[in-house]
């Protein structure tokens, strides 16, 4: 080869080396963190709370991190594409915040072994995939106590999304809480087959109130039911974030997801190099589940019942699922005094005795 070809080749190599060096130097500066949301950040529910976690991370770590979030990612093939894109763009820590992202996360994690993935509400882990969740059922039990005491019609309406164990255990816990203070209470449950559809949630809420429910629970992500409760002058329990703005007089309390302590912990672990795949299931004790201010209309003795239960659960003295408990078909699944194991809870696919209606398949 002649001299010019040699110079040309050397120049190309130099350019490539510079780019590679600067890219890696850049990556070494900031930790890139990605978030994948199933709904819009403005849902004032589930995804909104995760975004609050993201904002708290920015406040805590400032310049040391760079965050990206993608919202309204549907739980299907698109999810894999989005997670993959984030990983490809150099995000070392990726939070996927919905149950349906489980398999896409695992798939992408296999291809990007140097990135860490955190999957919320799932149950499959791998070397670089951790799972995390909140024991919402503890909160629902406490809210159930409030509802059981406050209801005048003894009918409580529940707007449910999909029949996965997490939703089912929520229904069971709320029912057990209500029944513990009011043996005559009845639950009416409507499945809307969506995490977020304000029109459907409003219709379901209306159907429940038409059928006599005077307190509404929901496991869906929009404030539509709370708004309807406010209009009709009944009560409702806020889901995932404080829905007080939508139901100033209607909100009994709200079960608020506080992801900040967990997120800060995990980012620190990545920065220290101590990150390991773990399964975190935080309850009231961990500070991940918080309650909004009690509605002033709740009588003081009922507030005390709820606060006592909350503190007992946090202290480990009370578990919402303590035997003797029977399934809806009458079979005993917890003996007297026996507390349910986490594994059984995570696979719960039955109603407890006393709930009418059957689970959709």
């Amino acid at each position, binding site marked *: 080869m002649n001299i010019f070809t040699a110079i040309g080749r050397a120049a190309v190599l130099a350019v490539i080396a510079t780019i590679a060096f600067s890219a890696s130097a850049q990556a070494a500066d900031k930790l890139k963190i990605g978030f994948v949301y199933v709904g*819009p950040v403005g849902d004032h529910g589930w995804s909104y709370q995760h975004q609050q976690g993201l904002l708290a991370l920015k406040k805590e770590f400032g310049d040391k991190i760079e965050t990206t979030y993608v919202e309204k990612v549907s739980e299907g093939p698109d999810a894999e594409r989005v997670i993959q894109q984030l990983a490809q763009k150099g995000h070392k820590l990726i939070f996927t915040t919905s149950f349906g992202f489980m398999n896409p996360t695992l798939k992408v994690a296999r291809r990007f072994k140097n990135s860490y993935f955190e999957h919320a509400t799932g149950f499959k882990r791998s070397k670089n995939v951790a799972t995390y969740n909140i024991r919402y059922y503890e909160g629902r039990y406490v809210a159930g106590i409030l509802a059981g005491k406050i209801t005048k019609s003894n009918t409580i309406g529940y707007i449910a999304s999909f029949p996965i164990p997490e939703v089912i255990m929520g229904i069971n816990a709320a029912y057990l809480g209500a029944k513990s203070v009011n043996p005559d209470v009845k639950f009416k*449950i409507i*499945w809307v087959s969506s995490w977020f559809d304000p029109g459907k949630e409003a219709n379901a809420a209306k159907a429940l109130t038409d059928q006599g429910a005077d307190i509404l629970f929901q496991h869906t992500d929009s404030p539509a039911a709370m708004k309807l409760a406010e209009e009709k002058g009944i009560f409702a329990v806020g889901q995932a974030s404080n829905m007080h703005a939508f139901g100033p007089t209607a909100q009994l309390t709200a079960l608020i997801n506080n992801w900040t302590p967990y997120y800060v912990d995990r980012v620190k672990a990545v920065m220290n190099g101590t990150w390991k795949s773990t399964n975190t299931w935080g309850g009231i004790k961990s500070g991940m589940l918080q309650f909004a201010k009690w509605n002033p209309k709740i009588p003081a003795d009922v507030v005390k019942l709820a606060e006592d239960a909350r503190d007992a659960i946090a202290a480990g003295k009370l578990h919402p699922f303590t035997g003797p408990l029977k399934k809806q078909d009458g079979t005993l699944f917890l003996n007297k005094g026996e507390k349910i194991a986490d594994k059984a809870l995570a696979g719960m696919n039955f109603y407890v005795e006393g709930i009418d209606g059957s689970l*959709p398949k």
Partner: protein
Amino acid sequence: MDLAVNIIIGIIIAATPLVYAAIGELVAEKSGVLNLGVEGMMIIGAVAAFAATIETGSFILGVCAAIICGALMALIFAFITQTLLANQVATGLALTMFGLGLAALLGQAYSGKSAPTFPKLAIPGLSDLPILGPLLFGHDILVYMSLALVIAVAWFLARTRTGLVIRAIGENHDAAHAIGYPVVAYRYATLAFGGACAGVGGAYLSIVQTPLWVENMTAGRGWIALALVVFAAWRPWRAFAGAYLFGGITIVQLHSQGLGLEVEPQLLAMLPYIATIIVLVLISSDRSRAHLNAPAKLGQTFFAPA
């Protein structure tokens, strides 16, 4: 009895947006244009109405904003298909996606806000009747206007000269053009009307049914409205009945779950959409169209020779 009344009220609320969207689309299709962009026009109407109501506090201005914005979207479609002679099906689909995206973008600023409740009619003597009161006289004005709209459109298409011209254009635009009718102008007008109606249908969702704005809140209702028009064999009263049937299935499905009836909720929830798919398949196969009373030139581009 109370429960039955409430269920019927729920059905009326669920059906009204479909009535508006379907009637508007029916008029457009009678003039021979297949506008698949109903979903896009509805959602733009929804965001426009919500934004206007929040900014000005007036529901009337909200509905007017929905009418104008829906009509504007339809006019974009009209320009592309009637003047630029693009394919109607492709343009309609593009309009849907454009409308959904644009509405999401414009609605960003409004996604946590709460609009005031739309007032319901309160006629002193009539609204207080035991059963008929809330059932017939206790709704908001848009419900009554939807009924008036159906009556007006049915009369207009069947009994007026302009209605006859519109139908003629839909059946044979070349002959109408030969006689001397301004085919393109008529189609612009019917499309604008269709857009305005779809806009009001969307407005009903965002300021009456759930006074909230959320992205994609129409959730496929535009497609159902399209199917309704074919379902109804392009007759206004049948479209009205079809809208109530579709709305009815949705509401009854929710109630039956609450009552503990043993039908799989997912099955009932699928029904309106399955019917939509079946009907949309039929609409695209030429042979069946003749049997379905469709305007003969539906979906075909009109090119005026000189």
